[in-house]
């Protein structure tokens, strides 16, 4: 009798500990990444002033005279992100409204899987799509477009994050109680008025959360910008020029452009830490907004 109950109990003990170990590994990895970034960044900032790093407008670690101002990289990231959101917000919201308010079942059955497949496309493919398809089109429309430019990368990145915006926004809109739609129809509202004046505002914080989470994805995106946006850190308002984002810079150095352990090499930790903190903050805001939304209903 005793052995009968002890074996499952021992099993249960082992399973529980194993599961705990799995969870522990993720947490540990997260702290290891943070520690790596911090130590690298601290050793970098012993040689470069932190003030110059955050206020300098030139980023030329690889040639003399060296400048370590991160603003051009930050701006590059911001520019591409803005363009991406300019594409993803209207497209994503449009398809979310279509799917939740207009589309009959047959249309949903086609569009939903297409959006899900888009999420599964490797980013390197998006990168080459930007470079070899979108950029040539841009060059026809605007002949001054460089081969590597922010606009092409931004547009394609926007297409990539559109499914994120649309699927989370659609969830938020579907969660709006049917009784609110009926109230509006009962007052003589037309379909688009119900969608735009009742459903969208009622789902507002869920929609904003979806946009913020997509934005964090855009900020951290690496492949598309490495391939299509160029490697010339620049403070420019012209999206047709090449720029460089924080992620693309880290890739460039990691691929061996600077000798391991050198000051140039260690820049990737300070840039990485900056990127990490930004994405972390944006994610935090996004999840906070999403939680606030789901509590509402």
């Amino acid at each position, binding site marked *: 009798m005793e052995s009968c109950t002890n074996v499952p109990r021992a099993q249960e003990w082992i399973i529980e500990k194993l599961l705990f170990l799995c969870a522990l590994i993720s947490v540990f990895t997260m702290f290891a990444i943070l520690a790596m970034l911090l130590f690298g960044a601290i050793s970098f900032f012993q040689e470069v002033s932190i003030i110059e790093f955050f206020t300098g407008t030139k980023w030329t670690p690889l040639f003399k005279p060296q400048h370590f101002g991160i603003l051009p990289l930050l701006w590059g990231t911001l520019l591409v992100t803005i363009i991406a959101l300019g594409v993803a917000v209207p497209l994503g919201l449009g398809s979310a409204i279509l799917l939740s308010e207009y589309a009959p079942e047959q249309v949903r059955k086609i569009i939903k899987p297409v959006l899900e497949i888009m999420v599964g496309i490797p980013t390197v493919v998006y990168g080459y799509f930007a470079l070899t398809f979108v950029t040539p089109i841009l060059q026809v429309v605007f002949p001054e477009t460089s081969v590597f430019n922010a606009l092409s990368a931004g547009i394609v990145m926007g297409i990539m994050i559109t499914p994120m915006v649309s699927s989370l926004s659609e969830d938020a809109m579907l969660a709006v109680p049917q009784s609110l739609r009926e109230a509006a129809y009962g007052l*003589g509202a037309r379909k688009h008025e119900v969608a735009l004046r009742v459903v969208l505002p009622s789902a507002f914080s869920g929609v904003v959360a979806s946009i913020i989470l997509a934005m964090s994805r855009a900020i951290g995106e690496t492949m598309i910008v490495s391939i299509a946006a160029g490697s010339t850190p620049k403070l420019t308002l012209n999206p047709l020029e090449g720029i460089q984002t924080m992620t693309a810079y880290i890739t460039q150095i990691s691929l061996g452009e600077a000798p391991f352990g050198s000051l140039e090499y260690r820049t990737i930790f300070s840039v990485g830490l900056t990127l990490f903190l930004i994405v972390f903050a944006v994610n935090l805001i996004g999840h906070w907004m999403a939680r606030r939304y789901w509590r509402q209903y």
Partner: protein
Amino acid sequence: MIGNVKIDVRDLNVWFGQNHVLKDITLKIKRNTVTAVMGPSGCGKTTFIRALNRMNELIEGSRTTGEIYIDGKNIYDKETDVYELRKKVGMVFQKPNPFPKSIFDNIAFAPRIHGITDPKTLQEIVERSLKEAALWNEVKDRLKDSALDLSGGQQQRLCIARALAIKPEILLLDEPCSALDPSATAKVETLIRKLAENYTVIIVTHNMQQAARVSDYAAFLYAGKLIEYGGTRQIFENPQNVLTEKYITGKFG
């Protein structure tokens, strides 16, 4: 009664899929009266009033035959603009369903979508509607607050005010008190009596005392059929049909 007929329902049938929910309903409803629609759960009461503003169409698989004349015009005609119809036939639902907006914006919603933008006019409409719904004194200092902060009874009166904002001619109330406590119910009932001065009111109710208190006419539905229809007093004191009698004496339902 002929000259005073507001709504004339002829051979109304409604199906949801295979389910035949309303069967050959024919009745006339008088202008500026309160008509109670009674009957056990699932008898088609709600479907009946939702046929009057064509809300059943929002449900996939619904089908309606027959005619409903409002002021002599068949609302199931091809030319009828259903959005204009719903402007004329306001509706209040079983559970209070204010929009997650301010009290002001809730009332101003319908006037705005129907083209009124002048802030002064909107202000006047909001005040008039809230007064008509006997809610003005309770909320006049907090029009910018969220409607969701109001109590259940206040929310329901807000929903009535919201419907009144576009001056409908007919007001459909679908068990408006079922989610309210007795004191809130009393307030809404007093309000319904008052509304009959200017509106044709049709109220679905489960509660027979309520039907007796508020209505001038009463219709009794059973299994999708109109069993009996007449003056409320007559229905309660001298029902002609044995089913009606059983229902109002509480033998089933």
